[in-house]
């Protein structure tokens, strides 16, 4: 099973583009979280493809997935907190810096 790398890279680009477009166009907190995770999935796929192309293991991808988990849970906590504080998940309403 020897496939070229470019189909994976193209798929990763498309996934990243979908996620980035969602992050630009949507303004709901949960939608932003979903979009960022889609973009992250594209990054994981590209990283795994290039790791495999260079004979590396999946260890770098695993570490990046762990960092992505941290990003996801912190973003979800922010969305939940925003919902509790403002009764809304519209991120355009969060336009005040606290400090």
């Amino acid at each position, binding site marked *: 099973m020897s*496939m070229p790398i470019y189909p*994976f890279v193209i798929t990763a680009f*498309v996934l990243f583009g979908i*996620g980035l477009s969602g992050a630009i166009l949507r303004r*709901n907190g949960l939608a932003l*979280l*979903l979009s960022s995770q889609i973009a992250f999935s594209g990054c994981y796929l590209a990283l795994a493809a290039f790791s495999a192309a260079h004979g590396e293991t999946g260890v770098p991808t695993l570490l990046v*997935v*762990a960092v992505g988990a941290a990003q996801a849970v912190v973003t979800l906590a922010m969305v939940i907190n925003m919902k509790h504080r403002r009764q809304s998940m519209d991120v355009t309403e969060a336009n005040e810096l606290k*400090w």
Partner: protein
Amino acid sequence: MPISLDLVTFGLLALSGITAASFAVAHRRPLLGAFALLISALSVAALMAIFLRAPIAAVALISLQGALAAAIYVFSVSTLDDGQLAGQIDKGRTGPSRARAVAVGAVTAGFVIMVAVAFFDAGSSMRIVPAASDSTSGDLFASRALVPFVITGFVLLAALVGIFQGMRAPSEEGERSL
């Protein structure tokens, strides 16, 4: 590249992943969006496990996205009302502004360029090669990947602190003093 079972499998998985990702981004119902995110993650994880020889990362990806989808599901069911669950969260939106349209156009143009580069440059020389075994992956954590492993642990610890800080109940006294 001739048509083979590998290519067909790759095409189906990539198509399901991209379709589910588009659905997750475009749909207004949070529960269906979380479900679509899980489908997209499963497709990407299958690509990683079958073709890219990264089964551990694929399992981690499924665990992450599954837990995230479950958390979104529980949050949505317990917090949102019927109207928000039905997709009325973004009500009142009048359409993308010019700046957003320009940004989306720039992103699309960038993808076209990158895809062209991927097609004509990387595709000609770089191919998937057999990677090391899982036992070698485990050994890497204690040797070459030890520093990133420790740094990732600190990042996760900082994220844990961030979760507790972010989930803290709002207090009027604290808000005034800050």
